[in-house]
């Protein structure tokens, strides 16, 4: 893997965002709206503070963390879509750039997006609702890192599908992540799910992360078991998805789809 090629691709997207207000807005628009809507719902729920302890921390924290996952996924998928829209895939893959370097660059971009959105959302939560996400403490850090990786896994999966089935599948860039939301247990504990769905949810690293976050809030005990599961599942799925991406890339080259992906 060559750093200069990853650097080239990262800069290609930074140049793009530098002069594109709509693209910049897209990064912040949905997270901001989410925060406003859920923020007011939370303010309303605070009236029942007695029945639902820690409701503000619970909902706003969950919302901010969900957006971390969502933006991490989008950082990968939208970067790929940008290359399709610009009809630039041939230029990239006829160069020495490797598919793994392409993925690495999109992951770097994803970190930039996550960082930007997190700062904006954390600041808005503080200003509008007097909520400090960092009060969850340092235990938040390993969970956020794992959420980013979960976002990458969903991003690589979505990108592979778009590469294989073409631009008509691009709607998945915005929709795919929501397929995972019910079994990520973002806003509710896992035990509210039916038993069969709980079994599926336990196979989802995001469910362990959100369960872990709730455990931190409710008991102040560091949920090392949930973290271990999240790390293990993330490593497994990440390896599988990167392998799947390479396989799909080769299938696309065999079927001539890579040069027609934007059509």
């Amino acid at each position, binding site marked *: 893997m*060559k750093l*200069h*090629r990853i*650097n*080239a*691709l990262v*800069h*290609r997207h930074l*140049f*793009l965002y530098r*002069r*594109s207000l709509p693209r910049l807005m897209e990064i912040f628009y949905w997270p901001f709206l989410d925060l406003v809507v859920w923020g007011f719902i939370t303010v309303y729920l605070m009236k029942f503070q007695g029945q639902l302890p820690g409701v503000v921390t619970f909902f706003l924290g969950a919302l901010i963390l969900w957006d971390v996952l969502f933006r991490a996924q989008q950082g990968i998928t939208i970067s790929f879509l*940008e290359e399709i829209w*610009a*009809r*630039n895939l*041939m*230029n*990239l*893959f*006829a*160069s*020495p*750039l*490797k598919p793994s370097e392409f993925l690495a660059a999109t992951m770097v971009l994803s970190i930039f997006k996550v960082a930007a959105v997190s700062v904006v959302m954390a600041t808005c939560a503080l200003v509008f609702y007097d909520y400090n996400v960092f009060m969850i403490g340092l235990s938040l850090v390993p969970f956020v890192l794992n959420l980013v990786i979960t976002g990458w896994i969903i991003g690589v999966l979505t990108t592979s599908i778009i590469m294989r089935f073409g631009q008509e599948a691009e709607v998945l860039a915005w929709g795919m992540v929501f397929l995972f939301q019910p079994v990520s247990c973002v806003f509710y504990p896992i035990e509210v799910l039916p038993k069969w769905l709980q079994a599926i949810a336990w196979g989802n690293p995001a469910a362990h992360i959100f369960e872990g976050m709730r455990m931190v809030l409710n008991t102040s005990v560091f949920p090392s078991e949930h973290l271990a599961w999240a790390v293990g599942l993330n490593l497994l799925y990440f390896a599988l998805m990167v392998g799947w991406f390479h396989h799909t890339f*080769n299938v696309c*080259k*065999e*079927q*001539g789809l*890579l*040069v027609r992906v934007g059509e």
Partner: protein
Amino acid sequence: MPAPILEVKSLTKRFGDAIAVDDISFDIRPGEILGLLGPNGAGKTTTIQMLLGLVTPTTGSIRMFGLDLAAHREQILQQVNFSSTYISMPYSLTIEENLWVVAKLYGMTDIARRIDEVLKKVEMEDSRTKVTRRLSSGQMTRLALAKAILTEPKILFLDEPTASLDPDIAHKIRALLKEVRKSSGLSVLYTSHNMKEMEEMSDRIIFLQKGKIVAQGTAQEITQRFGQRNLEEVFLKLARES
């Protein structure tokens, strides 16, 4: 005679039941310009896409610089570039930014100097900060060519490089290619539907039809073989027969 810089042996590409390229073999020597001629759907673009590693051949082998493309993709593509009328560069970036990204992708150093050089060659030095979407189609083609020669490749694949250019700019582009070839010993694989251009530019020509090589040689050899006065007449004869 120097050893070939590019060797294609028994190259075939099938898409399901359709054969896009059918058992073709050819080579290119250092400094040679090889013209790839044929009607639409003859397999020219698929051949170039296979040579660029974008499409995997069904059978056959591609070797460049003595290395097998399947096994040494990165090393080979480092020394190769291409330009196609049908491919654009990111519209939201300036000319300079686009070229900078390409230079970085190929690991070049002294990028600013090299960008200055190629922009001067394609007569676009005053447009360097222009956003690509504001370029005319002729300027876009020149940018694609600037991108192709920027990395100082040893082999260049050009898919209809002058298709959208007016005669004046097309003439300048041909002159530029001849100059680059002379100064750097560049080898070129060239496709065009402009028969006069083919005759002017190519040392040898391969005529493809339905994925097969139906004729190869110099323009003069081909026209004599088919009993025609020029390449255009050969093209029409073959295209109508098919």
